[in-house]
């Protein structure tokens, strides 16, 4: 089976500023990977490159063996850090929108999760709080049967009680061949669901390891290691 994500010598610059320099990275199917790094380290840039929202300046990025295009967008489910939904729409309108464009979207799953979080599908987004909108987006993203999920700060704006439900949803809703990349600052909250972690700093991957390795070899949690490595 081919790797779900492969980057080799990947470079992205914004003008003269280098956001990612010479990234080499492989992510295999069936892994939950934490993409961890301080602000401006290049996390979002990497995720945007995976989703075809940016084009690399040099190097190669492949998703399931393909460069980002229509075919990769079909199998990548992306939760950006922004709320990207049109405020004038109702939740059910957006669900039918997703259903129309994504063959792998599971409508029943989406309604089920909405019920669980007590979100009314007939409500328009304008009436919702920022946290509720984030929940709606996450539900939409996790209701797709994708091969790769890219979650950029998925729990940052959500209350701790909903966080647990969301994390549970994440682990229980993806099939074992799918991979998830989660970028976040809230390491301690998600540490338990991660298989491996990537530390990224100033556009470079500084550490790639499994969570178990860190626990056994370093004898500390990922959160503690992060605080140590990126100490200001």
């Amino acid at each position, binding site marked *: 089976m081919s790797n779900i994500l492969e980057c080799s010598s990947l470079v992205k610059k*914004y*003008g003269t500023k280098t956001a990612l320099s010479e990234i080499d990275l492989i992510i295999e199917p069936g892994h939950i990977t934490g993409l961890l790094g301080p602000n401006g380290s290049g996390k979002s840039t990497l995720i*945007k490159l995976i*989703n*075809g*929202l*940016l*084009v690399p300046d040099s190097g190669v990025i492949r998703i399931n063996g393909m460069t980002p295009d*229509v*075919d990769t*967008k*079909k199998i*990548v489910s*992306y939760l*950006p850090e*922004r*709320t*990207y*939904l*049109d405020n*004038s729409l109702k939740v059910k*309108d957006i669900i039918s*929108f997703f259903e*129309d*464009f*994504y063959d792998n979207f599971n409508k029943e799953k989406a309604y089920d999760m909405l019920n669980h979080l007590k979100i009314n599908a007939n409500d328009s987004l304008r009436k919702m709080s920022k946290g509720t909108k984030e929940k709606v987006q996450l539900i939409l993203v996790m209701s797709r049967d994708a091969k790769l999920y890219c979650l950029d700060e998925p729990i940052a704006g959500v209350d701790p009680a909903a966080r647990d439900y969301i994390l549970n949803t994440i682990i229980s809703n993806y099939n074992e061949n799918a991979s998830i990349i989660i970028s976040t600052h809230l390491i301690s909250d998600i540490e338990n669901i991660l298989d491996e972690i990537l530390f990224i700093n100033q556009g470079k991957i500084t550490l790639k390891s499994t969570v178990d390795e860190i626990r056994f070899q370093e004898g500390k949690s990922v959160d503690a290691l992060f605080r140590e490595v990126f100490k200001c």
Partner: protein
Amino acid sequence: MLGKLIKHEFKAVSKVLGILHIALLITTIMGIFAINISKHSGFIFFNELTFILYIFILIAISIAVMIYIVIRFYQNIFTDEGYLTNTLPVKPYEHIIAKLYVSFVWVIINAICTLISFFFLMLSQSSISEIKIALWNYKSDLLDLMGNHTQLVIFLMILGVFISVIYMLIMSYAAIAIGQTMRNHKVLFSLGAYVVLYVLSQIVSTIIRLPFGFISLLETNTINWNTFFVPIILLSYLLSTALIILYFFITNYIMSKKLNLD
């Protein structure tokens, strides 16, 4: 996928544009009443003022339609909504075509509604027979002007309207896209790009038409539809079409390769 894009695009814009056209309907009804009332009040001046106000609102609604369409393109592709739009499993050119198509249909709907509104206002001021006579006179004037090329001229006029609407839309799209390639002040650069593109296209079309000006000076006797107007019109349509294709490729290139959402 193109069909689905068009379907959802209509859904997304029709609410606001529908409201604008209800406003157009109300303006027409109120305009008819107001002008009739003021006509009997004896103040001719008031009558004219109402009419001017009516025309002003009609123009304002048409401008609002254009602005809304262009802002929708910007918002849906280059702001936060772009995170969804640009990650749909769809090629960038399909987004452009879908938006162009839906905008085009709405601009034409707006033009037709405006004409109908104007017609009813005229009708309320005079009888159908009067309008018929007026139109008949106008028609005979037109026939004199066009000679025996009526059908050709009407065809060229409609074609001209279609081309210029598409031209206007795609030029706005290209201007917005060009502005997005800047790091800062993207909207400002988009406005600047629009002005530059507008001035450039005016210069180019003037230069293209220039030779015809000399022909008209040299051979004043042979000027007629076939030798003069039709070639110049066709040439300007051809030029517009070439620029439409160029703007389309610029927009598509920026959306595919130079996208940089904040």
